[in-house]
């Protein structure tokens, strides 16, 4: 072989980095090209260079002036925030009852909720559309949000974590004169903060990125969420890639900012719920 020990050792230590860095280039390049294109103009758009020759903000200005991008952003924010708050509240409430408050028929209720996990969203979309057309909820925030306000997965996850709280802790709260609502709110919930955080992240991201139901439930331009708005705008923009990439950049940046702040919690939250769920 002719290889000396240290060289082999160094090679064994370095080659995983080589593969991983190659992978990172594949992951990062599309983002870099997206950023670059969004600042380009003219013939430069079709060059591979990652640094725009004459950087311009015109593409972003075009979006802000000719589309309802700020409104779509606000719509997405409102919808994702309300759905997240609702899920945290109701999922943990139902999870608490299923974990800690025996009531008649509890097992049946639990199995019923669990079984709804097997119903794919695709099957519910036509019935929702028919129901919401009748009630006039199509093209409203309420119509977009309602199907996600409580989730079986969230209830199940909360139940798992709440089961881990010792009964003595809850009883101490009861002896202190708290009613069951108070025990849930003041004793149980503070004990599962990491799980609540993980659920909040999953629900928020899921709703921020949601496409299938919003694209059906939304009709007017002003009600669009960011993904729906971006999708329809890009479809109409033809080959104006600089505009489409500017739209994509504006959709990606908020996610990246949030990710930069809560990177560890987000990754660990997904790992936690992915495995323990």
């Amino acid at each position, binding site marked *: 072989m002719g290889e000396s020990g240290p060289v082999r050792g160094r090679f064994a230590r370095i080659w995983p980095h080589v593969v991983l860095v190659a*992978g990172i280039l594949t992951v990062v390049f599309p983002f870099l090209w997206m950023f670059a294109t969004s600042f380009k103009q003219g013939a430069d758009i079709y060059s591979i260079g990652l640094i725009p020759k004459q950087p311009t903000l015109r593409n972003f200005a075009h979006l802000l002036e000719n589309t309802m991008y700020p409104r779509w952003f606000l719509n997405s924010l409102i919808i994702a925030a309300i759905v997240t708050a609702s899920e945290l509240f109701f999922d943990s409430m139902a999870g608490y009852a299923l974990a800690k408050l025996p009531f008649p028929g*509890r097992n049946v209720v639990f199995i*019923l909720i669990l079984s709804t996990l097997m119903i794919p969203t695709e099957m519910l979309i036509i019935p929702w559309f028919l129901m919401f057309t009748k009630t006039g909820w199509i093209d409203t925030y309420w119509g977009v949000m309602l199907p996600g306000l409580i989730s079986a*997965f969230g209830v199940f996850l909360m139940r798992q974590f709440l089961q881990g709280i010792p009964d003595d802790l809850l009883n101490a709260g009861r002896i202190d004169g708290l009613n069951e609502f108070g025990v849930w709110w003041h004793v149980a919930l503070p004990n599962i903060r990491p799980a609540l955080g993980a659920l909040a992240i999953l629900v928020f991201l899921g709703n921020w990125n949601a496409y299938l139901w919003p694209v059906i439930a939304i009709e007017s331009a002003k009600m669009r969420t960011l993904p729906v708005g971006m999708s329809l705008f890009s479809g109409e923009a*033809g080959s104006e890639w600089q505009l489409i990439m500017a739209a994509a950049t504006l959709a990606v940046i908020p996610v990246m900012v949030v990710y930069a702040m809560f990177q560890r919690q*987000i990754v660990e939250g997904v790992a936690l719920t992915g495995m323990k769920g």
Partner: protein
Amino acid sequence: MTSAGSGVSRRKRGLSLQQRTSMWGTAFMAIPMLFFLLVRIYPALVAFNVSLHNWNIMSRSRPFIGFANYATMMADPEFWNAARNTLVYSVIIVPASLALGLLTAYLIQSVNRARGTYRMVYFLPYITPTVAVSWVWRWLFFKNGGAINQILIALGMRPQPFLESVHQALFCVASVVVWQGLGYYMVVFLAGLEMIPSELKEAATIDGANRWQVFRTITLPLLNPTIVFLAVLGTIRSLQIFTEIMNMTSGGSGQGDLGGPLGSTMSLVVYIYRVAFYQFKFGYASAMTVALFFVILLITLVQMRILNKPVEY
């Protein structure tokens, strides 16, 4: 409640702890239960019902036609095209994601430096909005001037039609799904790898096993639950593939030219969407969603037998 005097305190005390608990439990469950009945279970039954009718949103009469929609489905070449494509998506996406996810996780676990950075970067695409990811890749794959063709030309190779080709478009879409989902597989595999006691590997190494042998005889078998979990989840997710196809391969006419050149990227859910919301055949579309439900149910039941826990999709 015999005497009025001690009525209030008696009534309060009168409920046993057990009764009070069950009362609170019922109160806590009331809204969630109503929600699941009205927003999940009832609509699921509606879907079955609609699938048994000739339910066109344009016409007022919706005659009951039994299982005719299912018969239509079995004889519809477009349905079978979409079903076959969906199967091809799963067959590509699931093994590729498992292999690359495990490789990435394994390598990250084996290095000492920059672990956190690797994990952070590889996970990024997973949390990026799929619509944005799809359009960025549509631009990368663009035939005239897209980055990939420019790189191919620079390397002296011939440019490819990619998303405009009947033969390549589906693979392009599948590769984007793998690219975006890789971070998730990696994170779950990392969690699985961390649960394997290092003593086992050390013992095997002392016994003279090389890296590959340790991986094959210890790591892989102990990762089995993780692999099954991800395989099932990945299969169910790829059966529902929609957003990538809609955004990467739909034409710009707004007339329902979805699913790529000659329907070559058309998945089941995209086809259902087109039948329902472009052709307004709600009955037929519902029948196909019911079929999808049974396929997913079957997979879920199999995985519950194996792992005994539910999966989100």
